[in-house]
């Protein structure tokens, strides 16, 4: 029996395995330096511990709640794209939107299995009393009543969802501080949400002439706009809050450094547009839930 062969076998199935267990590598090194008989006897026990750590069975309830919050967002996003792709004649850029749809469904699967492996109970589609993308609080006839019949509304709502997803993940990073497995996974999804946000924005501007850039650019010349109006470029005033909050998107001070006072290629200062676009801002879990509940969804 060779422990390192086992790890190589696992790596074939799970390429991330080495990264998952990296904090345990010292333990492996210690095992390999034992006398051979002692080491052989110790391996089954050590392996069990290894798997627990690697697949997070020791994950705390707060980590699981963060993962379930993330899964809730991914379920909403996946459902949004699944519904849009099924709506007859809605989506023109089929391959483009299908890529995003596939990523969101992959995120659902990944988070579901991660939560299960960690000993938690994942949120499912059945956990929702309703999901209403018209923002009608269950009436299915809210302000975005044409979200699945008008492609431009669909794309504007998609942009909002992606930007909000980026902000939501960022807001949870601190709750996963120092956690190699879960923080790294969350950051990896966060980056993909940002790719999607950029992609939807690029599609809207390059093909449909919307006044948006791949990044969130605030128009306000001064002051912190907690309402979000200054940073909401979707064309839908109803989603201002998605760009506002306690640390709104038009924030220009980072870690005590006022970005607008820093030199740029234009001179001794930096414009508000650049200073705000260069840094995406987080939303707290409470802020995200206030946006989503009850307008878009309600859990049972």
């Amino acid at each position, binding site marked *: 029996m060779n422990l390192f062969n086992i790890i190589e076998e696992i790596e074939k199935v799970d390429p991330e395995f080495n990264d998952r267990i990296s904090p345990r590598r010292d333990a492996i090194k210690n095992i390999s330096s034992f006398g051979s008989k002692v080491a052989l006897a110790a391996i089954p026990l050590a392996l069990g511990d290894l798997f627990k750590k690697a697949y997070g069975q020791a994950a705390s309830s707060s980590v699981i709640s963060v993962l379930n919050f993330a899964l809730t967002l991914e379920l909403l996003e996946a459902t949004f794209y699944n519904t849009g792709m099924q709506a007859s004649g809605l989506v023109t850029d089929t391959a483009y939107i299908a890529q995003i749809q596939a990523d969101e469904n992959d995120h659902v699967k990944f988070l579901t299995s991660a939560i299960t492996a960690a000993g938690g109970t994942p949120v499912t589609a059945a956990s929702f009393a309703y999901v209403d993308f018209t923002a009608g609080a269950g009436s299915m006839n809210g302000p975005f009543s044409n979200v699945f019949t008008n492609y431009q509304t669909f794309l504007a709502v998609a942009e909002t969802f992606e930007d909000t997803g980026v902000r939501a993940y960022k807001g949870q990073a601190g709750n996963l501080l120092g956690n190699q497995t879960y923080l790294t996974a969350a*950051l990896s999804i966060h980056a993909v949400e940002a790719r999607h946000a*950029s992609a939807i924005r690029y599609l809207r501007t390059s093909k449909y002439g919307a006044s948006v850039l791949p990044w969130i650019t605030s128009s306000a010349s001064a002051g912190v706009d907690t309402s979000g109006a200054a940073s909401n470029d979707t064309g839908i005033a109803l989603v201002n809050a998605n760009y506002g909050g306690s640390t709104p998107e038009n924030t220009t001070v980072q870690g005590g450094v006022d970005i607008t006072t820093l030199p740029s290629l234009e001179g001794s200062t930096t414009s508000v547009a650049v200073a705000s676009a260069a840094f995406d801002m987080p939303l707290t879990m409470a802020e995200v839930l206030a946006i989503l509940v009850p307008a878009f969804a309600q859990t049972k």
Partner: protein
Amino acid sequence: MKTETELNNGNVNMARRSFLRYAGAGVAGIGLISAASSCHKDHNVTPSGTIDVGSGDPGILNYAYALEQLEAAFYTQVIATPYSGMASVEISFLTDIRDHEVAHREFFKAALGTGAIQALTPDFSSINFSSRASVLTAAKAFEDLGVTAYDGVGYLIQNPAYLVIAGSIVSVEARHAALIGNLITFGNFASSDQVDATTGLNASNKPSVVLAAANTYLKTKVSARSFS
């Protein structure tokens, strides 16, 4: 099977050995090794001229500062000597990205203060700035690298405020990466070389991997010994 540490030490030793081979004299070599192994101060300059980013959160911030210096220098050159036929919309996008990267660079410089590593000298000799394909290929490499770099060290950050700032920057890098991908090939915003087709997770990389790539574009080489 070697541990990660052993592998990395092996690489360092290999690098040192080949450096010594070029340096020639054995006696001089011994002096260099002892000098190198006694250098444990933050972001010091080793005899071979490599800048180390240091340790702890300042080390992570300096690591980010090094990468932002590289990106800012690249886009500054892109806009200073635009490739032939750069469309006005591309000028606008690439100028915005340049300005974001400069803002990131200047932020880290200001935040680190006297703890900042020196200004790095880039080496863009492998990039043909008059070619759209060459420039966008390099841009994609820089943006993708930046995303994997931030995501790969997030868990090492100890101060939650720094973690949020790193998060604030990495999503903008990901927005850039997706745009550059789209400019190269429409729809190529989450390519399978960066986003796992099964999990939907973006790749992340250790500093040793990131810096090996970044150093090919730097005259001033950078290391992150305490994070390898």
